[in-house]
């Protein structure tokens, strides 16, 4: 049976909630994100649109969908990753799904946190 690959990408304290950093995992460039609740998530550091490095974008929030024209309810600060080029919004906590079209999502990696270390596995 093939042994699971596991690589440490950063220490827990390297990221505060709402921050991200680039790292490598095997042959992949990845972006490691720490969401507002302190949990860690990792995605391929490449926008599915035109390949921009997502780690050069911004972690922020987003106005939530509403039925009221003119209502801006900005929520989820620290949970939304926006591409540095076209600004497309991806939900860190929902498998990297694009807010405008949930059928499209970033490639994500499983994250394990042990003994203060953040590791990716596959």
């Amino acid at each position, binding site marked *: 049976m093939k042994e699971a690959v596991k690589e440490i990408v950063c220490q827990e304290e390297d990221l505060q909630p709402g921050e991200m950093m680039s790292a490598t995992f095997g042959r992949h460039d990845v972006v490691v994100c720490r969401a507002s609740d302190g949990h860690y998530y990792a995605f391929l550091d490449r926008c599915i*649109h*035109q*390949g*921009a*490095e997502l780690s*050069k*974008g*911004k972690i922020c929030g987003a106005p939530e969908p509403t039925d009221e024209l003119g209502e801006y309810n900005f929520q989820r600060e620290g949970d939304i990753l*926006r*591409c*540095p*080029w*076209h*600004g497309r919004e991806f939900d860190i906590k929902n498998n990297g799904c694009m807010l405008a079209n949930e059928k499209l999502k970033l490639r994500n990696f499983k994250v394990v946190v042990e003994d203060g270390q953040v590791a990716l596995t596959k």
Partner: protein
Amino acid sequence: MGNTKENANLGLIDTDIHERVMYEELLPYLDQPWRRYITDAHWIQEKHMPYTQPAVAGVDRADARVPDGRPAGTDLGFMQEQLLDSLGHEIGVLTGALDPSPSSMHGWYEMATALASAYNDWQIDKWLDKDERLYGSVHIAAQDPAAAVKEIERVGSHPKMVQILLPIDDILWGDAYYHPIFEAAEKHDLMVGMHHNEPPLHYGKWPKYFIEWHTLIPVSHMNQVTNLVFNGVFEKFPKLKVMMIEGGFTYVPFLMRKMDQQYKDLRHEVPWVNQMPSKTIREHFCFTTQPLEEMTKKEFMQILEQMGSEEIVSFSTDYPHWDYDSPTEALPPKLDEELMRKLLSENARNFYPKLQKKEG
């Protein structure tokens, strides 16, 4: 990122790169009293847009800000590193950042004329003379055609100036009043590049949302194409060609069909127009690709087929702006190599006479 080797093989010519000047850099190129209007009176380019760009870093790619903190597009070295070297550009055509945009000023044409001259000298000194891949646009104050012609006479023969820049705002440039500019363009083997600045295309006003304005930018380009053709610009200036920059090209099949149909009915109103508008468009216009809609190869080819030409579309990145298109990612996959060569290189080279001369 990107495939440098592939682009180098195709000889990438990028038809829309926005270099940006910091006002203080213009000062050495301005005489008094113009210089003091910046240093003492704090002149800034008038702007009207009511919203800031809703991208991550305003109008720019978030990763294009110069590492020392200066705005995107202000540093040649960083542009070389991030764009020209990494993507294997053979040629890049500079189109300015519309700040200053002398032809967009609603008044004080003397200041506009001085700014245009200063900008041209700065552009030559700091960009065109510094990188052999970069070609430039002649900035003018087109509201004063006599002064504009004077500036074209002054710098238009520079071997790396390939076009005259006319912003798309609230002036339709086909009117006979502006024809001396086109006459000067022909004289110096210059084409015209039109790029939108702040066209108030929503019935002369601004829509509520940026997304509305940005969606309909191609309408402002359609206004200009229609105006130039029906004002007989190309019958009068047969060597003149116009690059429509940053409006994309997917509107062109519609416009060709609509203009041809109208011409059949209404030719009597414009008897100086002597051929079908679609033919004039194919002969005298080229359209830059960005911002590309996401399309399949089939959809892309259908649009080209309806345009009746593969020769009037030219790739552009719009670097360093937020809606940048990557030359290796934005086009549909698996386009034929011959077509890729046309889109990425040949069409632009054939469009600009001075680039043809370079090849020879």
